[in-house]
Every structure is written in structure tokens, then in C-alpha cells.
């Protein structure tokens, strides 16, 4: 479930940054409509992509359950981190993105 978790966390961070309010709050500067769209698309794709490692390792039944669980967990983690440790929230996203290819090998 680790790869799925990493992908979901990055995906949700992207979706979060796609919102003006949070973009300013976390990155300190305004975003552009193109960036917003890109983040939204990228974020959504990553969330959908996270389904693959779950299903590949555990089949469709258990895989779907794991994917939903990982979605909810990563969302909770992100929303909890943003107000208390915004920089940690962002760096975790960066780390997760870097660690994903490694996690793919471990699949």
C-alpha cells in the first residue's frame, strides 16, 4: 500500500495547491489559471494512478478497499499538517514524489 499512499499524498497536495487560497498560504505567491488547471489535472491523475499498485498486488476487491483507505488517510494527513507544519507538508509531497519510483521497484 506504500506506493499508493505516496501517490495519493502527492495527488492531494497538487489538488490543494490548485486552489488559490492554499497556493498563497503554502507557496506565498499567486498562481495562474494554467497552473491551476495543470495542478488539478496532475493531482487527479495521480489519485487515479494510485489504484494500479493496489489492484496489482491485491486484486480488485481488496485493491479497491485499500485504494479508498489510502485516499482517506493521505487526505487526513495533509489537512492536519497544513495548518501546523506547512513546510513539512510540502516537503513530504516532494519526498513522496521522489520515493515513488523506488516504491515501484519494491512492488
Amino acid at each position, binding site marked *: 500500500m506504500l506506493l499508493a499512499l505516496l501517490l495519493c499524498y502527492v495527488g492531494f497536495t497538487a489538488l490543494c495547491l490548485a486552489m488559490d*487560497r492554499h497556493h498563497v498560504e503554502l507557496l506565498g505567491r499567486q498562481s495562474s489559471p494554467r497552473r491551476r488547471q495543470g495542478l488539478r489535472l496532475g493531482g487527479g491523475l495521480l489519485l487515479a494512478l494510485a489504484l494500479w499498485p493496489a489492484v496489482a498486488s491485491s486484486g480488485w*476487491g481488496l485493491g479497491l*478497499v*485499500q485504494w*479508498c483507505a489510502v485516499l*482517506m488517510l493521505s487526505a487526513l494527513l495533509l489537512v492536519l499538517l497544513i495548518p501546523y507544519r506547512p513546510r513539512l507538508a510540502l516537503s513530504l509531497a516532494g519526498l513522496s514524489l521522489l520515493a515513488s519510483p523506488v516504491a515501484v521497484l519494491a512492488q
Partner: protein
Amino acid sequence: MKEGFRQAMAWLHTWAGLTFGWLLFAIFLTGTLAYFKDETSHWMQPEIPARSVSSEASLNVAQNYLEQHAAGASRWLIELPDDREPGLSVRWQQTPAKRGERGQFTEKHLDPQTGAEVQGRETSGGEFFYRFHFQLQMPYPWGRWLSTIAAMVMFVALISGIITHKKIFKDFFTFRPRKGQRSWLDGHNAVAVLVLPFHLMITYSSLVIFMSMVMPASILASYRGDVRGFFDEVFPASTTPELSGQPAALAPLAPLLEKAREQWGGGRTGRLTVNNPGDTNASVVLVRDGADRVVHDFGSAVTFNGVTGQLLGTTPEPSLPRAIAGSFYGLHMGHFAGPVLRWLYFVFGLAGTAMIGTGLVIWLGKRQLKHAKSAAMPFELRLVEVLNIAGMSGLMVAVAAFFWANRLLPLGLAGRAAWEVNAFFIVWGLSVLHAVVRRGRRAWVEQLALAALLFGAVPLLNALTTPYHLGASLAQGDWAMAGFDLTCLATGVFFTWAAWKMQRAAQPERVIRVRAQPITLEQEAH
């Protein structure tokens, strides 16, 4: 009309949430605890060793024991150990039961390694929380009716909440702490929206689980009142062959496990039923382990002749509607969940509990603001305050008291298990009295502090009353035992923080800040 609709749903959400909130909080909390009921039972009966033995070896042990002690019985039942339930239990029935009745059973727990009978201290264990969350300690069937009604109200509250929450996408990632009432609402929305799939699944599945009881109209209509006929079709009755009267040695049962595994494409056997052991017409029914798949299988079974080992029959694959019902059941129970997923079930269950708890706090807090200037609170608000305190912090103190009773009550005490449960309810009742006598904040702080003390001291209590303390359990790799102690410790830390926060919030400058930012749910609805 749009405006009116949202407002109406806000009203519905508020009042449905309030009237059933305390009951739902208790149901959610005990249900969440039930996900670790096997581990809880293990901690509460530490004398019973947790040994991992293969299914085949355990089955041999069980067969030997039953051939010695229950040779003339009409039916044997054997529950094989698994990852979470390391015990081997056997039951037997001397005389067959009348059709449709349960019959009399003798039950024994065996050590899967030696075959000797094990006896742990008399306790309900984790089963208490499991049963409470849907039976509510009420006589059959009233508890189930009430908990299912509560589930329907929960469903209404969830949907009306979604409708009311206008900025459900805009505020998806919004959580602003340290802002008084605003933070409580943000928190309520966060644990609700971010974990919504779980909440919807848990709520709807609990309706499906008892649907035959609460919504029997279609059974009665389609089966012309023959309810038994419906159940026979959905749960094909295990037909017990006639007793031939001719004795024949029962073949070894262990090899049948492998045969069943082949039938199920690698599935595990959870329990076995041996009908007419020692007779030529003995049959062995192997039922698949519920933890095998997400779709809970109601009696996926393979039947063999007990003497020759010949395959007599298998249950067919379930139809789509039954598979869907099975999925609801399986998802709710979470039998299939491994350790990681089980902890996630626990976390999401706590999130649901927090969703209800924050809702109750917000309901009161909003109305308390209106009466902040007057000295006395109107009776209705005072009632809600007492129920909030006793229903939430009081309940948690009662849970801790249940564990303390398990360690402190004498082992030989008659009715020990009942007394542990009594301790739970007595302490819960006392928390109500305490909340009545002590005003608002003070009651919260005191009860939270007591919960912190009782939970935090569990590992110490364990070390003082049994030899299975944290040092020993960690050294032996008994993760259930160690995990329980550590989780209680962490819970104690959490309640310490909560009590401290509550104490600080009672300070004057905090009250002014809260008043300066009154929030109204009606504005939310706009």
C-alpha cells in the same frame, strides 16, 4: 427554493444529530474498539497463551481430544485458530437439536500445541464492545432495533450534512486551528468530508446487516409469510444425514483441509462441523474463513463423507444481489483486514466518533454564546451539556474502568465477567452525576484528566498485577499484548493534552476571543 432547501436540511441535520448524537457516539466508539476485539480479549485473558500452530496440527489435536471426550456426540464443531484468534475451540452436541433451534453445546478451549484444556479468567473480553455496539445491553431484539434506527438517523444526518455543506469542495482542505468555534466546525467538516466514503459505507452496511429484521415487507410479500423459506434459500441449511447406527472409524480430518483449499482456489478453512462422528454416515462440513475475501461468504462450504473422504457437495457461487449484500457485511465487519488495514479501520472509526462528538460540542457552543452574558444556563442547554460530558468523556472513563476491573477483580470471584461489565456501567453512571454536580468546564477537565490517568496507567497496572507486562510481551514478540499496553499509554497522553487544552480554554481572554468571532451555521447554509 434553493435557499430554503439548504436551510431545511441544516435544520434536519442539527436536530437529527442532536437527538441521536449521544447514542451514535457510544455506538461508534464501541464499534471502533471492536475492530481489535481479539487483541483486547487476549489482553484481558493473558493466561491463555498465543501460540502459532499450523491448521493441520491444530485439527489433529482437536480430533484427538474430541474422540476421547465426545465420542458419542451427534455433532462436533471445531474453530481453527488464525492470525488474530490463536485459540482452538471445540464444541459438541450430545443430542441433535430440533429443526430451527440452536441446541445445547458444550464448549472447551484447547491449547493447539498440547491439546490440554485452557482456562483463562472469566471475562467478556473484547466481545463486550462488539456486542454492545449493536445490542446496547438491551434484551433481544430491542437493542438491535434501536441501533438500526440510530443507523437510519445517522444516514439522514450524513446526507443532510452533505447537502448543507455548501463549500464542500472549496473547503475540502480547510482546517483553521486556534480560532474557537470556527476550528470546531472546520474539524467537524474535515473528519466528516475527508473520511466520507468510510462513514457512508459503515452506516449503510449497518442497515443492510439487519435489513431482514427491520424491513421484512418484501420477504412477507414474496414468500407469503414463510420467512423460514426465505432464510432456507439464502442460507442453504446444512443437511445432516441420518444416523445409520453402524459404527465406522472417522478418517483423519487434517488432509481434508488441503482438499477444501483446492476447491476454493487457495482459500482457508475457518471451522469444521462433523455430523455423526463414529458412524458410517458421518459427514464433515468445512466452512471457509470469513477473513479470506472482502465479500463475506455466508457459509461457503465443502462437504465430505467422514469415513471415505469422498466429496459430497459444494455451495455454489453467490448471485450478484447476494454478493452485494455480502460485500456490505464484509466491509462493515472488516474480517479480511490485515494489520495495516485494521489500524486504518480503527483510525477512520475514531474519525467518525470525532465527527459526532465535534457536532455535539458545536451544537452546544453556538447556543451557549447567546447565553454567555446571563449567569444561569437554561435547563435544555444544561441538559445537553451534562449529556455531552457524560456521553463522551464519561464513556471513555468507563472504558478504562472496564480494563481496570479486569485486572483488579479477584480471579476466583463468582460472576466475574458480569462484574467487569457492571464496573463499566457504574462508572458511566457516576460520570453523569459528576457532570451534574460540577459546572461545565470543570467537569470536562476533571473527567478528561481521570481518563488520562486511567488509560496512561494501564501498562503500569498490567505490570503490577500480571507477569505479562510490556517488557515481557515485547521480548516475546506478543504484539497484541504489547500493542494494547502501548495504545492505552498513547490514549492517556492524548487525554492529558485534551484536559490541558480544556483547562486553558477556560481562561478569560479565551472567552473574549470566542465571543469576537461568533459563527452561525445559518450563514454556512447561505
